[in-house]
């Protein structure tokens, strides 16, 4: 009898604790009352936290704006665990919501699945890469914004070293940093850009130490895309009095004398666009890829912009501002292309001889290096690579002009000319697995995790075990 009572009370106490703690997540969210207008039901769902001072917070504010601007009722759900995403979407669709804004890349596939069962519900996935009849994605060209950050940093750096800290190596984040590198190198070809990945978006202490280590290695601009870990990166910059770049929203308020600017995703505009598609019955199930705009709410479709310098405005020289403006316009006008790059790249180069002339070809690659380059006089240039991958090559026009065909082995591959000047043009293509030779283009490979490193690691572990095991006895280690 007694033990029943005991068990019951245990269950009750634990249930109460779990209930209280789960309420803690949900409780502060309020559902606003509609203040008129059509009773459209909108939901904002995300795996992030609305209190993260970044990605989640910006979405929360943007949805709040829909309430105040149009008087719609918006329901909110945050901190949804990845495995619960589908069930959450299904619940809102079941409850008859007209528009669900799913905030995060991971919501893409479940959205398509749930969307099939609820054709009357429209789902817009922010930063997704999926689409169906009633599911659309908005995938901002963030690299266009971070390109400008890289260029700005390169113009202002005193040490010649820029740095970035990433939460994890997701394709989207690689793309952001590749834009940053491209911008930096455009301004200062010999600039050093160092990067650190934390493997953790919620660890500000680690972010801070990563930033301090980068500053110790000469970096004087720190750029983060690491959610709350990024708060630590900004703190490191503040402590060492160097500049930081914020991510996703204007993070100047976190450290006004430190955050020079931020690349901002104009979610107010993006969510409004999503809403208008539904309100005006113009929903298109496709992937939208909006790029940069000159400033918040500017005309055009762009939703990525750089935040104002705020109180650091006087620290940015006028010629830097002018150049930045010029670059912004060039990117908007597609005079400078900042291609999506979802793999980490490294620089490659090769020299080719023709007669007694030597030509240098440079580029970037996500895969291997160029083993050799030979010019087939007057017709083509041929590269031998040691690995497949995504490749961009800058070919001097004195070597080749008016590129028509790129062949990998004997198959023709698609290519894109991403920029062209009087002296050279840059093309981008994919060298498929299994091919090594390309007629007209080349690549570089990141050194592989070599056998040598594996041997060193094994020796290290065996050594540590051995030392502790045998010397440990002398030190009386491990005796209780």
């Amino acid at each position, binding site marked *: 009898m007694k033990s029943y009572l005991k068990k019951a009370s245990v269950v009750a106490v634990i249930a109460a604790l779990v209930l209280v703690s789960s309420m803690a997540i949900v409780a502060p969210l309020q559902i606003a009352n509609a203040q008129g207008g059509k009773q459209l039901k909108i939901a904002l769902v995300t795996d992030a936290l609305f209190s993260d001072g970044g990605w989640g917070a910006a979405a929360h504010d943007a949805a709040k704006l829909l309430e105040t601007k149009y008087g719609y009722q918006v329901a909110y759900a945050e901190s949804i665990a990845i495995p619960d995403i589908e069930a959450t979407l299904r619940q809102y669709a079941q409850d008859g919501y007209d528009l669900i804004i799913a905030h995060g890349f991971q919501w893409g596939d479940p959205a398509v699945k749930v969307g099939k069962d609820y054709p009357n519900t429209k789902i817009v996935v922010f930063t997704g890469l999926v689409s169906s009849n009633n599911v659309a994605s908005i995938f901002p060209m963030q690299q266009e914004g971070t390109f400008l950050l890289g260029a700005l940093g390169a113009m202002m750096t005193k040490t010649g070293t820029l740095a970035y800290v990433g939460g994890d*190596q997701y394709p989207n984040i690689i793309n952001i940093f590749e834009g940053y590198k491209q911008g930096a190198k455009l301004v200062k070809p010999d600039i050093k850009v160092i990067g650190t990945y934390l493997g953790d978006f919620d660890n*500000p202490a680690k972010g801070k*130490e990563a930033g301090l*280590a980068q500053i110790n290695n000469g*970096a004087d601009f720190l750029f983060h895309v690491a959610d709350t870990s990024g708060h630590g990166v900004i703190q490191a910059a503040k402590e060492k009095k160097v500049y930081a770049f914020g991510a996703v*929203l204007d993070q100047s308020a976190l450290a006004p004398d430190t955050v020079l600017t931020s690349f901002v995703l104009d979610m107010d505009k993006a969510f409004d666009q999503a809403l208008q598609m539904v309100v005006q019955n113009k929903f298109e199930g496709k992937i939208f890829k909006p790029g940069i705009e000159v400033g918040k709410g500017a005309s055009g479709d762009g939703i990525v912009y750089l935040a104002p310098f705020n109180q650091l405005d006087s620290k940015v020289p006028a010629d830097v501002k002018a150049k930045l403006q010029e670059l912004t316009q060039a990117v908007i006008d597609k005079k400078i292309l900042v291609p999506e790059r979802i793999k980490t790249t490294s620089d490659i180069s090769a020299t080719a001889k023709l007669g007694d002339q030597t030509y240098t070809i440079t580029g970037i690659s996500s895969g291997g290096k160029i083993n050799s380059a030979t010019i087939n006089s007057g017709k083509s240039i041929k590269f031998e690579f040691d690995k497949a991958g995504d490749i961009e090559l800058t070919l001097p026009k004195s070597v080749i002009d008016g590129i028509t065909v790129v062949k990998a082995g004997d198959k023709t591959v698609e290519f894109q000319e991403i920029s062209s000047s009087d002296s050279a043009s840059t093309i981008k293509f994919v060298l498929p697995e299994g091919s090594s030779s390309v007629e007209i283009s080349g690549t570089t490979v990141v050194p592989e995790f070599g056998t040598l490193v594996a041997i060193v690691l094994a020796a290290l572990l065996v050594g*540590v075990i051995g030392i502790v*095991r045998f010397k440990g006895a002398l030190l009386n280690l*491990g005796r209780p």
Partner: protein
Amino acid sequence: MKLAGETEAVIIGIIASGIRLATPVLFAGLGEKIAERSGILNLGIEGMMLMGAFGGFIGTYFTGNYVIGILLAMASAGILAVLKGFLSITIRTNQLAAGLAIWLLGTGLAALLYRLTFGVRTAAPSVELMPKIDIPGLSNLPGIGPILFNHDPLVYIGFLLVPLTYIFIFKTNLGLKIRTVGENPKQADALGVNVYKIRYLAVIVGGALAGIGGAYYSLVQTGYFLENITGGAGWIALALVIFGRWKSQWILVGALIFGMVDAFQLGLQALGTTLPYQFLLMLPYLIPIAVLVGLYKRTGAPAALATPYVRGER
């Protein structure tokens, strides 16, 4: 080519960084050690650290006084420890389940209270970071000075706690009672030791120390409170106690290995190594495992760990 001075600065930076990364887990580990020595396994330590981070933050935010912040951090985590004590000592629930419940409660409660206080906003409120204190005469020593004697006060306190907790557990009467209660509560009871009181005391002291560890993140490292700011440090601390064989000095060694290896890999990434970062991120966990395998002899855990004591039961 790097100049010798720059290389030295990088190495000093890595070691000092390792000490900062080790400090919060050291506090939590020492606290957990005291609780476990009395026979209470506290899995809720992560939740207590978060409450500590929150308590420390609001205490300092509203008063501008770090001492009040730290005291509030200890109290916030201590309240959870009282609850943990109630669940595990008084009504004798399964200690694993009670610990997990405390973890969830602490995580949710810290977030709820923070939002009730500040609301949801894009610009997080912040406090000035706790200033560093140079130890006069020592902080200028070449090499060792900037590594050991140019830190915030909590680093010094944390390192001081290592011998203090050792003396407390092994050289004081109360420490002896705690160990007896953890090894053989029945015998302790027969000798007139109040098992329940001693266990409550140990859990609360342990919780308060975990609270300081949590406050380290909000007051020393970042100046903000963020939900999940502790980033799983409580779980690392739990592992450290086992790693350290329930002994202060080895918990310190474990915390330092963890912190140093983490700082080392961050330093290596910043140097621009070509090693894959995934491999580097693994190191702080891999090296302690290697040491643990090397050390393995017998656990040395308190005999009555995670066993509730029922007075008068045979």
